[in-house]
């Protein structure tokens, strides 16, 4: 089903551990290009951990190690010659809490582009990015106001615009709507629909309806007590398929139980 040519990121037997405790193990996942892939599952199943592994944000967490391979365009991102800064320029990230810089809206967008050596028309880029993130109309008259002065939903779309401005190939979103109200959530989801024309998107969400609404592919993770240990649960990938398959005719019983709201 998955043509290898359409795969942009491929996780091969990835196990991620905090200290010596594995958080998620033996994940195989092929993320298709120019599609929205949702990662769903109960708390503690390691879906955010997997997401952060894709642009090496886990490097920032003390004691976090990864085994296996994460291939991006066929290159192993965890090869020791890889520069994580360069990886994050190609694979941008939007976080759970909106985190605009305490600078003007304009500077928020220009910051990433400038440090990436963008030399074109900055005004044009700012407008384009804000338009793509569907926040231009609300911001265009106050580009010099602080990004922090916007509402939560606007801040999150500003953060998306900021990520778009560095022209990454992939945008990772870690529960981007969990701190937002339903209307802002709807707007972000519309934004995601627009964005997938130009970008590959991987989104972690707790909200199954959201996964159903925005994604083309869905990966369901679950966690279970590891045998012979007293420690925490270990996450694993249960099922990865087209979103409608996952929600309408899942192969696994655990998936069926989760998407129908019987646990999680």
């Amino acid at each position: 089903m998955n043509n290898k040519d359409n795969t942009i990121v491929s996780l091969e037997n990835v196990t991620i551990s905090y200290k010596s405790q594995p958080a998620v193990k033996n994940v195989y996942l092929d993320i298709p290009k120019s599609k929205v892939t949702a990662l769903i599952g109960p708390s503690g199943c390691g879906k955010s951990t997997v997401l952060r592994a894709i642009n090496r944000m886990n490097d920032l967490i003390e004691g976090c190690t990864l085994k296996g391979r994460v291939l991006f365009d066929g290159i192993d991102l965890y090869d020791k010659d890889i520069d994580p800064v360069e990886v994050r320029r190609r694979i941008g990230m939007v976080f759970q809490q909106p985190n605009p810089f305490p600078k003007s809206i304009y500077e928020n967008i220009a910051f990433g582009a400038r440090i990436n050596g963008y030399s074109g028309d900055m005004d044009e880029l700012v407008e384009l990015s804000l338009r793509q993130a569907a926040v231009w109309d609300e911001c265009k008259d106050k580009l010099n106001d602080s990004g922090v002065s916007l509402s939560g939903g606007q801040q999150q779309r500003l953060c998306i615009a900021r990520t778009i401005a560095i022209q990454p190939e992939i945008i990772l979103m870690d529960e981007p709507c969990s701190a937002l109200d339903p209307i802002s959530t709807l707007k972000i989801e519309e934004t995601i629909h627009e964005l997938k024309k130009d970008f590959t998107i991987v989104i972690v969400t707790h909200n199954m309806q959201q996964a159903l609404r925005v994604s083309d592919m869905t990966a369901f993770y679950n966690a279970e007590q590891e045998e012979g240990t007293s420690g925490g649960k270990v996450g694993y990938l249960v099922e990865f398929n087209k979103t409608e398959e996952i929600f309408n005719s899942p192969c696994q019983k655990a998936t069926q139980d989760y998407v129908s709201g019987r646990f999680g």
Partner: protein
Amino acid sequence: MNSNLYYNPSLRRNISDKVLTLLSGLFSLIAILPLILVIAYVIVNGASQINLSVLTQLPEPPGDDISAGGIGNAIIGTLIVTGIAALISIPIGVGGGIYLAEYSKPGVFTKFIRFGTNVLSGVPSIISGVCVYGVIVSTKIILGSNFSALAGGLALSILMLPTIIKTTDEGLKLVSNDLRKAALGLGASKYITITRVTLPSAITPIATGVVLAIARAAGETAPLIFTALFSFYWAQGTQALLEPIATLSVLIYNFALEPYKTQNELACAASFILVIVVLMMNLLTKLIGYYTNSNKS
């Protein structure tokens, strides 16, 4: 059941409440009394001595009871010595604070630096003076000069360092990790993240710490007696950095102890200037906080 709800002043708990409130009020009044006394004393005795010639003339050597001259060279000297101290301690202190907050990994070395900083901030100022005297002044290690503005600045910078390191370290630790993640997630290097995002966000506490450290250093006497000494002449040219230099605090120390009234009055004038400068510095920190906060949101 039929006890009434009205306030009864003769109740034991109400009496002790009143007494304790009164007592704590009294003690806090006593606590700020020294501050009021010092400022009142300096203003009453010092402000009347201030005139243009006091601010611009050189001090006369003791013994001439007609006029003690002015404190012009001491004002310039304090600016020079404190300026040297700031030039040394701000880069080192801010740099050290950045290392502690942003780069260091928790471990023995980091703990040692933080502990050392705390110890250094508790070192009596006279010790830093004696130390610089022993290392630089008595050995004439800097171009053969002994007492000098440079040595004085160095002694003061030792006193400023711990304050600057600590406020930088703590100011940076207050910056939300979300901001660091935001910058790193956009492909910013650690250097860019620190210089463009975290450091600007922490500029208020850092600037406040720097100004407080400068204010403290400007009033120090003990370390300067051993290092900058005193001079009755103007600081002239770059050569002045390697020569003894007058400062307000040492001028106060020298002249307040003279048996001559005119000299004592000059010390009062210098005290007034010094207290005003320190007060201004403290007000400046409030201003920095006010200005940068209103700028952010």
